[in-house]
């Protein structure tokens, strides 16, 4: 580099510093910028609201219309996800992985909405089949997301959803409902809270590393 060994050494140190800066910044840019725990929690609560609404008949003239329970609750959950998501994620950059995962969940949501709405309107629906469809679709999307993120906890959720789908088809209405409620509790509520806690821990660590 230069004839002077001191200058040469300094230059080499500076070049190594540049190389490590590149590596650190690339890693920093890709580091967990997503925050999705709240979405699982929100949808878990939405499922519980829809189930409660659709299974009770004493809620008055508006809330007593049980056929509205799923379409209305799911639409409200969709709108809330978009509005809160825009507020939360607006300042975070999008990575290819985050876009792929968001696209997958959106496609699943649209498929589920079209399918369940059509089943509801056509009347060709049986509760066990209804639950099995929802559980299988959630299992598929959770599994795909866990493979992308290499996240074992989410893969466990996928397995729970798949198990719920199978059990639902081999059980009576009460057992099937119970399995569905349990799967929602573990894979949406508990997993959502776990995700939010993990994200908060990550943010604290990142804050400490920038201090």
């Amino acid at each position, binding site marked *: 580099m230069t004839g002077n060994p001191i200058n040469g050494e300094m230059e080499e140190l500076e*070049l190594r510093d540049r190389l490590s*800066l590149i590596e650190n*910044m690339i890693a920093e*840019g890709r580091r967990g910028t997503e925050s999705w725990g709240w979405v699982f929690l929100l949808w878990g609560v939405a499922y519980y609201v829809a189930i409660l609404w659709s299974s009770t008949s004493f809620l008055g003239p508006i809330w007593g219309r049980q056929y509205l329970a799923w379409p209305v609750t799911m639409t409200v959950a969709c709108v809330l996800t978009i509005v809160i998501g825009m507020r939360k994620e607006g300042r*975070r950059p999008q990575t290819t992985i985050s876009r792929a995962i968001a696209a997958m969940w959106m496609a699943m949501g649209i498929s589920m909405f079209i399918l369940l709405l059509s089943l509801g309107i056509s009347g060709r629906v049986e509760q066990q089949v209804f639950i099995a469809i929802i559980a299988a679709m959630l299992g598929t999307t959770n599994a795909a997301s866990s493979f992308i993120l290499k996240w074992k906890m989410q893969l466990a959720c996928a397995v729970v959803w798949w198990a719920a789908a199978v059990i639902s088809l081999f059980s009576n209405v009460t057992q099937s409902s119970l399995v569905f409620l349990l799967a929602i509790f573990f894979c949406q509520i508990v997993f959502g809270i776990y995700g939010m806690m993990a994200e908060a821990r990550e943010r604290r660590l990142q804050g400490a590393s920038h201090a």
Partner: protein
Amino acid sequence: MPELPELNPVIHGKLRLALLSLLTGVEEAEFTWLRVKTGSTDGNLGAQLLKLEEAGYVAVEKKFVQRKPQTLYRMTESGRQALTEYVQALKQLLGGAIDA
């Protein structure tokens, strides 16, 4: 003896190098996110981003989201190419230093 490559002076600046490296990992990033990640001041960050923009290494998009102004930066193809060449040159120089 093979000639050692020269380092691109636009990229060699520490903050500009950090910015380009950050932008390789994301599709686009907001000014405030880049400021937090690099820990630089608004003025310095704006000046360095302008140099990268003038060199054609980053593209800027200004828009309003929920009535708030937002400035988004994304790496261009020539920026990606320049960073790749910079890293190759850096490795070659360091290889030379190790051999010496």
